[in-house]
């Protein structure tokens, strides 16, 4: 699955600059409306970031899977509230089946582990997908649906679907999407060996990278605050109780960074979405989701009351961590699947499975 992994740091620097200039969390937090959104999206598209995972000859920027995952981590560091990850993922899914990539934001469905969509040979889609991120903001959905002979990718217009809009816990748009005999604009079989699970595994890795980025930012801001905030005559970061809390937070951040990076690397170097990718992506979503929950709690405790306000940017990160840990499979759901996988393989296979790479 490797394609052009070496462009690396330039692309990531460019992503970082765009986010810093156009999606500064404090600026976005202070803004009364959505006027920041359009210039940000325009710049992301112009910079080729939305199509990072599409090769140049197919109209993308062709920076490759590795750089794409790194861009998503950086986007997490800015708690980016536009469908960049969804568009990258959707475009990637469509490209797997050789389909054309439309302009503009794309979202993906299903967005969680237990929803199933079906598609006929003529491209008629049926089923429901709950909590599809940015469903109302994107003109198109890239979906994975089961056909008679295996999994398909399909492109569906959101206007052709029945969408009940709602919001994530982060306040970002989502929707419950019903596909009642919707005609796909295009559809194509996913390549052999890809398997029905590929979208969820990729989605789990994507959300894990975003969470790892957000957690690093939360650690940085929490350590910074502890060094500045005075209480009892000294910076609170001088108190051992606070130091130990921050050490625990660093541990959660480290676990998230390591396991999400490992999962991304496994996907980059795997020939297919096999058991080894499953172990990596499932573990990443479980452990990063746990880190999100525990890390958010520690950060809030260190920040005290100021962190529990709308004016402070902590909630921009914490609420997205809470949203992202639920999407593309929660910790509990992935853990249950992983546990069943381990049980079916048997106790003697556990160590060889873990030690495979």
């Amino acid at each position, binding site marked *: 699955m490797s394609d052009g992994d070496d462009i690396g740091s330039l692309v990531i620097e460019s992503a970082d600059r765009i986010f810093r200039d156009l999606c500064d969390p404090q600026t976005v937090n202070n803004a009364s409306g959505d006027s920041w959104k359009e210039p940000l999206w325009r710049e992301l598209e112009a910079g080729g970031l939305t199509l990072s995972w599409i090769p140049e000859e197919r109209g993308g920027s062709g920076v490759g899977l590795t750089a794409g995952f790194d861009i998503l981590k950086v986007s997490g560091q800015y708690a980016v509230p536009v469908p960049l990850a969804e568009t990258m993922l959707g475009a990637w899914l469509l490209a797997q089946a050789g389909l054309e990539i439309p302009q503009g934001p794309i979202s993906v469905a299903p967005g969680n582990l237990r929803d199933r969509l079906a598609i006929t040979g003529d491209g008629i889609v049926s089923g429901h997908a709950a909590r599809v991120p940015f469903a109302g903001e994107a003109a198109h959905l890239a979906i994975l649906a089961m056909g008679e002979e295996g999994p398909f990718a399909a492109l569906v217009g959101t206007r052709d679907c029945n969408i009940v809009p709602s919001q994530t816990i982060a306040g970002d748009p989502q929707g419950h999407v019903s596909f009642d005999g919707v005609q796909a604009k295009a559809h194509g079989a996913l390549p052999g060996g890809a398997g029905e699970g590929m979208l969820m595994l990729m989605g789990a890795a994507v959300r894990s990278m975003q969470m790892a980025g957000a957690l690093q930012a939360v650690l940085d801001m929490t350590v910074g605050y502890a060094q500045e905030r005075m209480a009892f005559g000294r910076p609170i970061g001088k108190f051992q109780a606070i130091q130990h809390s921050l050490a625990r937070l660093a541990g959660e951040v480290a*676990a998230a960074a390591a396991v999400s990076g490992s999962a991304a690397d496994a996907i980059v170097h795997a020939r297919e979405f096999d058991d080894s990718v499953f172990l990596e992506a499932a573990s990443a979503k479980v452990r990063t989701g746990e880190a999100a929950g525990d890390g958010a709690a520690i950060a809030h405790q260190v920040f005290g009351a100021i962190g529990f306000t709308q004016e402070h940017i902590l909630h921009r990160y914490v609420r997205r961590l809470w949203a992202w840990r639920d999407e593309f499979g929660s910790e509990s759901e992935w853990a*249950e699947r992983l546990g069943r996988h381990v049980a079916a393989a048997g*106790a003697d296979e556990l160590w060889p499975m873990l030690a495979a790479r």
Partner: protein
Amino acid sequence: MSQPIYFDPVRLPPEAQSLREEVRAFLAEEIAAGTFDPHSMGAGDRFNREFSRRVGARGWIGLTWPKKYGGHERSFLERFVLTEEFRVANAPAWGHFVADRQSGPMLMKYAGEDICMDILPRICRGECCFCIGMSEPNSGSDLFAAKTKAEKVDGGWKINGTKVWTSIAHHADYMIGLFRTSPPTEDNRRHGLTQFLVDMTLPGITINPIPWPNGALDFNEVVLEDVFIPDSHVLGDVDMAWKQATSELAYERSGPERFLETFYVLVGLVRLLGENPDTRGAEGVGRLVAQLHTLRRMSVSVNGMLQAGKEPVLEGSIVKDLGTIWEQALPARARDLAAFADPQSANMVSFHEQLEYATMSAPKLTIQGGTTEVLRGIIARGLGLR
């Protein structure tokens, strides 16, 4: 602002994975020959010199060391694989493991060439066991409170004092001991300690066992009375151990032995719950496996970064903190998840034996080699808070 926490996504190279196959074959032979029982808990902490000699004969001690010292100049990642396979198999590596992990590298850094040429090849042959003489009755985490005295005499030093909690001292050929050569100074209470190489057969050394709560013999009290140590056995600079002891490298903290010590309980749990566990059992096992996979990938990464010449000090301390907390919590979590397993299961008895042993040994896991509290202080320093 803190440094970003970074873990290279390291993949084990083919030579490490092929070494794994060799190690598994060797351990299978040893198990078949009755050297040790892989299901016997705590066997990994046992001493077996004959076994250590055979490991040495395979070239698996001092794997990363220079050839002139009997080493093999192979990579940290190969050593990683070797360590984790031995640990998971419960192989009795205690006779060579401490020397291999830390005492040998310490000698290479601070001992004279003649001592290195004498001792390191013996370690590599599995013939030389080391213990670590740090803690004292009134000096544990606070190492710089050590009082065991080294007094300058003609041609060497005379040692008087007591070390405690000294694992495997009763089998050890040598100890690396931390002794007081000068009083602390006004502005540096860490000043005045020196590291020495101590031959454990010297007159004046008495070793008294201190059994663990489960009766296991590992801890000792080591009493030193007028023990003479020659000048050539001073490691590094006199009075300056604080610089050496605190430059402890990340690989001493971040190895697979820092999260695999109770792994057998997880294997036992999976066996007990069977191939079709209920939702609670499946989810519980899945979480534990995800957490263990994460720790292992962190540890592989730290070792890979070391191999690449980086210094992931903060990352290494974090691996030990998370790893020891996890391996300590594992027995209690396995106990919860096993609560509703079929009491008639054929695997119940062995699971309970494993659980009992692990529960009894769990409290030490976050104490040995640096407590959780000490590690968190080190991590806080890495974050720029101290």
